[in-house]
């Protein structure tokens, strides 16, 4: 019961397939429908069997029909307010059937009355205890019909009685099918349904919690976007203001400098010419860096909030348009595009963002002493497309491979290029957002291949 769906291996022996069919949990709607159909089929079989019996052994079937009719009436009455009357009538029908049958039996030495009773009574009582009335009713019908048919063959030697036997067995079979369906329902389907409902409730609760958390993240990122950015923007702007004011006072100070002594002059010159511009430069740089980090955090926060879409698009057009953004770094000869699926159904914005980021990385971290070459290809799998982007760049130092997808981490051989260290973390978040996976192989100073999968939602042709 651990898994709700089990996958069947491609090749199996017939025996194991039958075993699978018998033991596999039937919990889907279809299976419940099949079970209902099986019950209807067994009821039809039963009707057929009864009509056989009635047609072929008209008169002697009275001992069957009367108790069964009485038992049925008793069952119907027991469903109404007069439960006791109904049960009483059923009990009477039951006893009547036993005595009627015994009275008909002419040769008491052949069929032991005690064995006869045990054979009939025990399963009926047991089933009455274990199963709903309907099953007991079928069981009574089945037992009486089969025993009667058997008795008919044994004591009359009439060939037509064979039909009675067959009818009895068919009745028995239908009763067993009904019984099995109830067994299945009571001991298998219902507990599983309860389990499923419980799991569903838990899932709904988790979903609600997730929605709440998502809303909180949304509020949080909104707060970052507005409240955290405003002071940063002010810092950048006031740095410019100070620069402007400095420029404004500079001529006056320059003019006044010669009137100062040498001792007074040098700190003023130092402050004006190097310390103040340097401080402002660092202040400006720090504010801008903080601002871009805030931007990256925002970008990450948006990934989780995004509702993924299903778009149909052409990968080749998309890749070409990305490559065209780098007319200098990526000439036509610098990019090889291999075989690509004609159409992909996935979130277009996410796929484009991922490819664009990976291409951008390849351009940024190209090996300086050789021209960059990109090799973009795709593998089409039954339900996914794997895209490989291979470069001949500087590679990722082997010792740092584990940090590649970590946020705010940058490889030691990338210090000459500006960056926040969020890029690949962001890319991974995007890939995972639409159910894919990303990985890479790299050789320092030889190149890196990034590969990612996208769930292709195209219907198989």
């Amino acid at each position, binding site marked *: 019961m651990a898994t709700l769906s089990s996958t069947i291996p491609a090749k199996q022996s017939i025996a194991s397939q039958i075993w699978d069919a018998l033991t596999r949990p039937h919990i889907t709607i279809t299976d419940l429908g099949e079970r209902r159909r099986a019950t209807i089929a067994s009821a039809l079989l039963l009707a057929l069997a009864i009509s056989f019996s009635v047609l072929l052994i008209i008169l002697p079937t009275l001992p069957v029909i009367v108790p069964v009719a009485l038992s049925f009436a008793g069952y119907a009455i027991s469903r109404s307010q007069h439960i006791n009357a109904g049960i009483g009538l059923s009990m009477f029908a039951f006893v009547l059937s036993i005595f009627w049958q015994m009275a008909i039996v002419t040769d008491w030495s052949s069929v032991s009355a005690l064995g006869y009773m045990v054979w009939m009574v025990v399963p009926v009582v047991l089933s009455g205890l274990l199963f709903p009335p309907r099953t007991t009713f079928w069981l009574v019908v089945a037992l009486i019909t089969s025993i009667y048919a058997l008795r008919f063959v044994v004591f009359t030697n009439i060939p037509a009685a064979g039909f009675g036997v067959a009818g009895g067995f068919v009745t028995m079979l239908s009763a067993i099918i009904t019984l099995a369906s109830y067994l299945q329902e009571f001991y298998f389907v219902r507990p599983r349904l309860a389990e499923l409902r419980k799991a569903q409730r838990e899932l709904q609760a988790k979903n609600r919690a997730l929605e709440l958390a998502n809303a909180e993240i949304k509020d949080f990122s909104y707060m970052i*976007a*507005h409240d955290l950015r*405003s002071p940063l923007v*002010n810092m*950048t*702007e006031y740095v410019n203001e100070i620069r402007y004011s400095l420029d404004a006072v500079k001529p006056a100070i320059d003019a006044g400098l010669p009137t100062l002594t040498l001792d007074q002059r040098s700190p003023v010159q130092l402050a004006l010419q190097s310390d103040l511009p340097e401080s402002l430069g660092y202040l400006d740089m720090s504010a801008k860096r903080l601002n871009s980090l805030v931007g990256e955090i925002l970008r990450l926060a948006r990934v989780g909030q995004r509702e993924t879409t299903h778009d149909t698009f052409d990968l080749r057009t998309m890749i070409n348009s990305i490559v065209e953004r780098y007319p200098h770094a990526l000439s036509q000869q610098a990019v090889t595009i291999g075989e690509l699926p004609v159409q992909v159904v996935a979130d277009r914005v996410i796929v484009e963002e991922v490819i664009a980021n990976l291409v951008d990385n390849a351009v940024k971290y190209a090996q300086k002493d050789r021209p960059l070459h990109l090799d973009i290809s795709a593998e089409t799998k039954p339900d996914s497309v794997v895209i490989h982007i291979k470069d001949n760049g500087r590679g990722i130092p082997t010792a740092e491979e584990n940090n590649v997808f970590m946020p705010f981490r940058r490889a030691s051989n990338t210090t000459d290029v500006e960056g926040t260290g969020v890029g690949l973390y962001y890319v991974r978040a995007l890939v995972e957002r639409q159910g894919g996976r990303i990985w890479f192989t790299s050789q320092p100073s030889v190149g890196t291949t990034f590969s990612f999968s996208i769930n292709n939602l195209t219907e198989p042709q």
Partner: protein
Amino acid sequence: MTLRTIIIIEDDPAHARIVERMLSRLGLQNPLLRCASGNEALQLLESLAKDNSTNFASQYVLLIDINLPGLNGFQVMEKLDSNSVLRFIPRIIISTSDEPLDISRSKDFAHLAYLIKPLDYARIVELIKELDA
């Protein structure tokens, strides 16, 4: 010809001050009023509108920040839109947010531009000069 008054609706005094400085430095001579909240701006505009009703909208231009205490910039614009006189005052939205949600929401309101801070002051000057021309 009189220059229209710029009303800047901005709760952050540091930012409002820099806008003032930059606009005058870039040669804009329009009078400038500052409101620290949306409510303040609405009260001010309503009282101004009582006194003169002809060509009222052509005497002002609004610089509206989105992130405001109390009514936010969008709500201020909603209120303006519900007023038959104030709705015609041209608006320039100024915001720190490049959130797609904010940008798409701003499209529900008539405005000259949605500018993200740090602001492109030359563009503001250009827009206001065009209005006054």
